């Protein structure tokens, strides 16, 4: 690619901490990434590794008890950490929208789908009654919501899980934001509707320069989204690269373990799946050394205990945080 435009999102050394019985612990620990208009970042990783919490910092909606720090957390050059309430309100929904892992959180059970989406459109984009209605219907049908003219009169409780998820997607799309954060946004959808949503997101990226953060556990789906892939473990990024690079040439022992445990259409119960042995560390427990060390088949005794591995370059676009890889290359993590 020729000289690329400036990133719209710049994150450096982002952390989120919570008070705990063992003192303050980080659930997001030193994340750095960038995103340009039209590009996408897929975040995958361990359950509880801080994916949702990291996303929440971009909307200023981490829990009250949390402390967010970053050397830089900039949206289009503007520092997000310094924003006041009015600043956030102008940004949320209009510039940056999030599709929550928990659609129930975004959908008020007492408000119909139509009211929910048309209120958002009125607030951020304005327009006459007829225009707002037309845009509401358009947003819903783009998200694959069936018979929107009629079914938008429904309350969330009258919809199936997947229909609720499509309402949440429509809500995020409705104000034409520049960045969409999709947190497990398609997990309740059958694969054919999932494919339709992915298609739509791709179109918005190519046509309107939408930037996308896509959190998923489905590595096949990560392939379909493309762009960069960040693999997280215990609050930290352990591998980062273009999606096909990371999935075809996984260099971190955690990424490798993850790929080994995924079922495919070829697997059946006669060849048991191989989960990574052991349990994920508690928040704070992995601090200091390499976060994956306690479960890592190739951990280096002293080094991984004591020192957090920095990034090692795999290619221009691919890096890994692993002492073993740094010392011995691919042979060491096989």
């Amino acid at each position: 690619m020729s000289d690329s435009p400036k990133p719209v999102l710049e994150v450096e050394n982002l952390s989120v901490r919570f008070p705990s019985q063992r003192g303050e612990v980080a659930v997001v620990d030193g994340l750095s990434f960038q995103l340009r208009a039209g590009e996408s970042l897929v975040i995958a990783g361990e359950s509880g590794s801080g994916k949702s919490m990291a996303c929440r910092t971009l909307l200023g909606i981490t829990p009250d008890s949390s402390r967010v720090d970053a050397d830089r957390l900039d949206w289009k050059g503007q520092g997000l950490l310094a924003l006041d309430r009015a600043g956030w309100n102008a940004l949320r929904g209009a510039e940056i929208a999030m599709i929550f892992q928990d659609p129930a959180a975004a959908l008020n059970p007492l408000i119909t789908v139509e009211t929910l989406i048309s209120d958002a459109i009125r607030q951020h984009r304005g327009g006459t009654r007829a225009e707002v209605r037309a845009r509401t219907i358009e947003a819903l049908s783009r998200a694959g919501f069936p018979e929107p003219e009629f079914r938008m009169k429904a309350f969330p409780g009258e919809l199936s899980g997947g229909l609720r998820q499509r309402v949440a997607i429509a809500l995020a799309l409705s104000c034409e934001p520049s960045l969409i954060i999709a947190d497990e946004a398609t997990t309740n959808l059958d694969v054919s509707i999932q494919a339709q949503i992915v298609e739509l997101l791709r179109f918005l990226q190519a046509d309107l320069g939408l930037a996308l953060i896509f959190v998923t556990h489905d590595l096949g789906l990560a392939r379909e989204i493309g762009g960069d892939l960040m693999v997280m473990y215990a609050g930290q990024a352990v591998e980062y690269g273009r999606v096909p690079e990371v999935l075809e040439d996984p260099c971190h022992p955690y990424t490798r373990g993850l790929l080994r445990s995924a079922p495919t259409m070829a697997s059946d119960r006669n060849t048991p799946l191989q989960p990574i042995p052991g349990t994920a560390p508690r928040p704070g427990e992995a601090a200091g050394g390499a976060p994956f060390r306690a479960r890592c088949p190739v951990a280096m005794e002293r080094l991984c205990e004591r020192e957090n591995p920095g990034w090692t370059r795999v290619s221009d676009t691919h890096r890994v945080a692993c002492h073993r890889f740094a010392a011995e290359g691919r042979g060491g993590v096989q």
Partner: protein
Amino acid sequence: MTPIFEAIGVNRTFTLRRGGKVSRIRAVQDVSLQLDRGEIVGLVGESGSGKTTLSRIMIGIERADSGEIRYQGRAVEPKKGFAALRREVQYVFQDPYNALCPTMRIGDALAEPLIIHRIAGRAERKQRVERMLSMVGLHADIARRLPRQLSGGQRQRVNLARALMLEPKVLICDEIVSGLDVSVQAQVLQLLLGLQQELDLSMLFISHDLRVIKYLSQRVYVMYRGQVVEQGATEKVFSAPSHSYTQKLLHAIPGREYPVPAGAQGRSENAGGTG
């Protein structure tokens, strides 16, 4: 053999009345489904095709317009009959967020079914809670937390743990592994297979992930617009689907056209066992 749990000719239509207009949604149309003892049955289908509604009818928290639910060969009476099954038939909800009481600590939520059914004293309850948490890959620490202090996948596992506390005979799981990373998912799937073998647990497993269904279930039902359009041995349905919707689903599995990553498979030696 009499099926342990069975739906026969179940129908459910929802009526929506808004601004003078009335519309009917035929959520479940003449659906019959059998679950044999010790069997895992998969239920897949279009989003909105009636899977959750059917399973809610089967456990008696949603009314059927017509049709019958049988448990161990006997028709279950509305209300009373279902109340009697509450211990033996457990349901894990699709939506892990609303299933837990927001002000109750996880440990108490897990111990609650034991208290209600007067099983185990205080000390043993605590032990059982910790053992169950570790079976689903969570630390005992989680017991002190509130639901909102957990990640999505952690909450999903707490819900499963809660359903398993009473060692049910039948388990209905509605989309319970979609929010888990594939390693934890593998752990949960192995756990469920283990329970099937050890406790002769029967399971109805609803999922959009055909790879998971293929791995776990012996038979599968495919629903489309409220009806069962295809059923049979999972192997057979997935290798030679007869209904066009099943074919469409199998065609849309994400990432299916990409090769399995080289370094990811093989390596049969198990690094360090499961300790």
